[in-house]
């Protein structure tokens, strides 16, 4: 039973690692750090594979592990990243095409995560609710607020 869960988590990890990497990268903007985060998240997920009871939650669970790992990483090295993020955003400012992207970049982490999961990764709202361990209506209203904010920023 244990090895079956391990095999499941393993295949989810290997199938989706590029998504985890992009998510981590949009948090930290540095290849080496994004890779650290994803590798560590993968390790944790494998190690705790047997604590997962419901197999149908496996893929949202792995996402959650990755996001938590990234958050811990950021918490640990917070100051560096605030500076880094500033630089990154200003560097991209002159490019019109990435206008919305740069606005998304400036969003607080929680809101950025919502946009990424919903629109860049095509997750459904209930999947997002599972990943973030929030109830559906909270996710809905938060996403709605975030979109309003984006619209205001753009106009």
């Amino acid at each position, binding site marked *: 039973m244990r090895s079956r869960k*391990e095999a499941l988590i*393993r295949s989810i*990890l*290997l199938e989706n*690692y*590029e998504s985890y*990497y*992009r998510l981590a*990268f*949009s948090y930290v903007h540095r*290849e080496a750090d994004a*890779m*650290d985060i*994803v*590798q*560590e*998240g*993968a*390790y*944790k*997920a*494998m*190690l*705790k*594979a*047997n*604590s997962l*009871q*419901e197999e149908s939650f496996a893929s949202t*669970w792995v996402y*959650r*592990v990755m*996001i*938590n*790992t990234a958050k*811990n*990483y950021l918490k*640990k*090295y917070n100051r*560096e990243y605030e500076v880094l993020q500033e630089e990154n955003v200003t560097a991209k400012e002159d490019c019109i*095409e*990435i*206008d*919305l*992207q740069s606005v*998304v970049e400036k969003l607080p982490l929680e809101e950025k995560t919502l946009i*990424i999961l*919903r*629109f*860049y990764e095509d997750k459904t*709202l209930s999947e997002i609710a599972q990943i973030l*361990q929030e109830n559906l209506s909270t996710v*809905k209203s938060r*996403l*709605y607020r975030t*979109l309003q904010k*984006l*619209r205001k920023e*753009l*106009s």
Partner: protein
Amino acid sequence: MRKIVDYNENKAEKLAESQAFTELENGIEAAREAYQDIPVPEEMRRRMEEAIRRAKRERRAKIPVIVAAAVALLIILPNTGADVAYAMGNIPVVGKLFQAVTFRDYQYESERFDANVEVPQIIVEDIGGKEDVISGNEAGAQEEGQEHGDGTANGLDTLQQTVEQVNFDIEEVTNQLIEEFQRSADLGESYGSLEIHHETVTDNERYFTLKLSIYQGAGSGSESYKLYTIDKQSGQRVQIRDLFREGSGYHELISENIREQMRTAMAEDEMKVYWVDYEEVPEWNWQGLKDDQNFYFDHAGNLVVVFDEYEIAPGYMGAQEFTVDRSVFEGLLK
């Protein structure tokens, strides 16, 4: 074009929102493409496989511990040691003076929460006859009623106090972790796990060291350790700084030895990363031994320095141990 407002079930609202947000759609589409163009380094896949291998290795390495029978909190037995200890809980006594037994066994399992906690207590058996025991009498029999005159009573008091303190500390630490775990398990939100195991890593003529391994997880987790070393001669708990003579320069010598080992390991294996000579962010670099750095002596008398996860390396490296050869520090010991 992808709809960005399909999250709302209410049709009227949906229409209003879709008008309000239509102008966003182009922007989001472009941003989405840019996002998906973020290049993923080729190395990433190899590192995923490495992470998976490492986790599997570690899972296998976990040896199940047989839970000892319940034993009273602190037992300092009289000279009849062996028999009484046997009677109290089938603890094997093979000439050993110090033992760690599982005092509390806490297990929990639900859909999202699991805990496997073994709380040890240190038991000291027969102080008076300690030299006889150590001299290798395998049956653990001691010369009965033997009294060691000078200072033994004091040493016993000190040792008793030390053991009580250590046991108290272990209880405090583990109780707190269990309570935290229990609280979040009761709330039932998210996930959590707690694993605490113990191991006697040193038991020689001079030192007894109990190692407590703590894995605490909520989604992601962290590994940390607590090592308790008791000096059998003085009866006191010792920290790493207590081992060495004042002004011996042990701190720099041992720290540098470990840094050198980190450099070698990184040069040999590019997967390995330690916070040493890291010029981009010098503050991350390891600052050398802490005064209460976790340590123990291995069977050959080498010093093993134990680090928590994140302490000297990025998290994916896990917790780390470095062994410093006794020849490096022997001259500096007290």
